[in-house]
């Protein structure tokens, strides 16, 4: 039996003493008086878009302030406790869901954003996706050929390489199943350096092997003179005439409620990099001009469905690099805008996440929970936003200004989910599973592929009982030169306000068909460099 509980990890935390590093870090929890700070650029959010932008802009000599709502939590505090990780490092304590509870959303809320808790998969954007953006939304300058040098730059910066270690048993299921069926399967490129292969990417990497923004671009930006203000939330944009001149922010206490102080940040340019949902919500709270009513619409999730396989041999899905094998056999099978295509991957499973997704109640739920050591979890990420029946969700504001995503689960997603279920059931049986069940509240474990195929036909595919979730929130501030359908230009500038730039995953006109981090890194590097050029000209 695999057991890592006696393994000792000595943490070397680069954040042990920020002041000794000469870093300017302000803790919003300590701000009780109103204050105003000035800079060349305010960056709202410290994740993939904000981190990359902060490093590039500050290295060009610009005075940068990075504003982050989450409190600073670094490797010395990453204790690998699942409940503490959800509480401190995820949006809404990992309780975020779409408005009708149809899809659970795992999105980071940390200094370093989702990059602190993602599973490290790093793919370049598919050419098909970028061509679709060019053809449908008049996105300019972002063809695969034009983006490749930016991907290359960020792959080097974040040490992204194909994972060369053998996959863990969970990921080996995907490889064995796909190999047996003659389907594509390949190792995943990961942003790690000296990875211990322990499997805790989702709880904050304790060894700092994961090249998240927390240990790469943010230290890079701070070393170049940037200021980080954490535990302070961007409330509204300061809009003067047709220009954005700063941010009204609220320092937050440990419990995420305001300290009551007002923090005013003034700058020549504001970059929103809060991620999808947060970035559109900031514009909505600010009453930013939006003549077509597009802000917050076309928000996408890669709606992800699940299949659980039981194996005779131990799988230990909680240990080892969480994602190391993938299959693109079905991503563009029906063309770029046909029935929902999906990418096949595996997911790491720790007890809280696993039981929450598997659900049920009473004795049978506990029986399933106890199968964890022999359980493999495969996932299919549906590409949303390409077909006319797939328009994604819409960001709304709750009465208190928090974002909420209204994303009804429709027939398009349910049809794709059923096909993906069948695909994953076949794959897991081909990999030698003893029993497999799809992530569906009414589905039993099936004993073989034939029984599964018949069983799935009798399931009711409807919202909520069909298990769906997402760790990829994209879109909401559509990029492109098509004025009728887009709010952001291809260089990241907002169409209806001067001085406002959107540099994060919000600008994607559709989902991607791959895990989004490298796309955000590459596009952000390009657009932050263009912004630096214009501000230093």
């Amino acid at each position, binding site marked *: 039996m695999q*057991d890592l509980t006696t393994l*000792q990890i000595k943490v070397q935390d680069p954040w042990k003493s920020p002041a000794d590093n000469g870093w300017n870090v302000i803790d919003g929890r300590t701000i009780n008086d109103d204050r105003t700070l000035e800079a060349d650029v305010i960056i709202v959010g410290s994740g993939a878009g904000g981190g990359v932008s902060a490093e590039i802009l500050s290295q060009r000599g610009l005075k940068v302030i990075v504003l982050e709502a989450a409190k600073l939590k670094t490797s010395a505090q990453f204790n690998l406790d699942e409940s503490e990780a959800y509480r401190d490092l995820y949006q809404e304590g990992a*309780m975020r869901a779409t408005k009708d*509870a149809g899809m659970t959303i795992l999105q980071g809320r940390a200094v370093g954003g989702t990059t602190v808790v993602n599973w490290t998969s790093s793919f370049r954007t598919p050419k098909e996706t970028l061509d679709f953006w060019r053809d449908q939304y008049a996105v300019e300058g972002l063809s695969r050929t034009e983006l490749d040098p930016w991907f290359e730059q960020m792959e080097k910066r974040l040490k992204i390489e194909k994972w060369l270690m053998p996959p863990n048993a969970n990921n080996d299921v995907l490889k064995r199943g796909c190999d047996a069926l003659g389907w594509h399967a390949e190792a995943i490129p990961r942003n790690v350096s000296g990875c211990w292969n322990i499997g805790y990417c989702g709880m904050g990497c*304790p060894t700092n092997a994961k090249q998240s923004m927390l240990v790469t671009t943010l230290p890079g930006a701070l070393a170049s003179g940037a200021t980080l203000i954490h535990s302070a939330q961007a409330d509204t944009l300061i809009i003067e005439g047709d220009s954005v001149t700063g941010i009204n922010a609220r320092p937050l206490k440990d419990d995420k409620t305001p300290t009551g102080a007002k923090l005013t940040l003034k700058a020549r340019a504001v970059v929103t990099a809060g991620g999808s949902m947060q970035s559109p919500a900031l514009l909505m709270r600010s009453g930013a001009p939006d003549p077509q009513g597009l802000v917050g619409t076309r928000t996408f999730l890669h709606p992800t469905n699940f299949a659980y396989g039981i194996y005779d041999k131990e799988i230990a899905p909680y240990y080892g690099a969480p994602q190391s094998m993938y299959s693109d056999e079905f991503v563009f099978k029906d063309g770029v805008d046909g029935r929902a295509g999906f990418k096949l991957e595996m997911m790491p499973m720790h007890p*809280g996440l696993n039981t*929450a997704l598997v659900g049920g109640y009473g004795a049978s739920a506990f029986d399933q*929970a106890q199968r964890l050591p022999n359980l493999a979890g495969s996932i299919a990420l549906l590409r949303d936003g390409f077909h006319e029946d797939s328009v994604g969700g819409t960001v709304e504001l709750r009465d208190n200004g*928090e974002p909420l995503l209204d994303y009804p689960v429709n027939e398009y997603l349910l049809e794709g989910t059923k096909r993906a279920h069948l695909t994953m059931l076949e794959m897991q049986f081909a990999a030698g599973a003893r029993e497999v069940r799809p992530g569906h509240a009414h589905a039993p474990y099936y004993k073989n592929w034939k029984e599964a195929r018949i069983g799935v036909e009798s399931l009711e595919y409807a919202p909520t009982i069909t298990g769906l979730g997402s760790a990829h929130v994209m879109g909401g501030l559509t990029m492109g030169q098509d004025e009728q359908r887009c709010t952001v230009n291809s260089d990241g500038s907002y169409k209806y306000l001067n001085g406002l730039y959107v540099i994060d995953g919000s600008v994607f006109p559709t989902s991607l068909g791959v895990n989004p981090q490298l796309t955000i890194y590459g596009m952000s590097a390009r657009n932050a460099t263009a912004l630096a050029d214009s501000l230093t000209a």
Partner: protein
Amino acid sequence: MDQGIDRRGFLKLGAASSALLATGSGLALLTGCSSQSEGPAEGYRYFRQQDVDLLTPLVGAVLGPALAAAGASATDGMKAYDDLLEGAMPGTRATLFQLLDLLQLGAARWFLTGSWAHFAEQSDEQLQQTLDDWSAKSNGIARMAFKGLTQPMFMAWYAKPAGAVTTGYPGPPQIVTA
């Protein structure tokens, strides 16, 4: 304006199921639940006394033998649920409380779970039957309520070391701060 519920209005009511949740608090107020406590119950940071009374039996039934396997009680499961709410945003908690206010009403319990009785007034067997009926319901809002209430119970309990170890998960490596 026609105040009667004609066919068209009725259909609209069915389609806008989330509106029922949204008006849950209001309904509870109208029917006399307003005298209930609004502050957290003793020993809890978020759940109010009426939530603790309502949900503790349900937590016991949903988590079932998992609690006993850890030498824990339904109250321990309920406390874990309360801890989970610490990470949530005020808006997330408000939505949950609206649902809980709604479930204080017998009619709403019947509509959502198939049983009129308060969870504290059901025997263990009756609660299992309620869960059987509730999880098999075909109306969207009942399904939404079931998932919305039970999913966090699992997340809350099994993410705790005491719950986690009962799944066969040995636990994480040890962290030694340099």
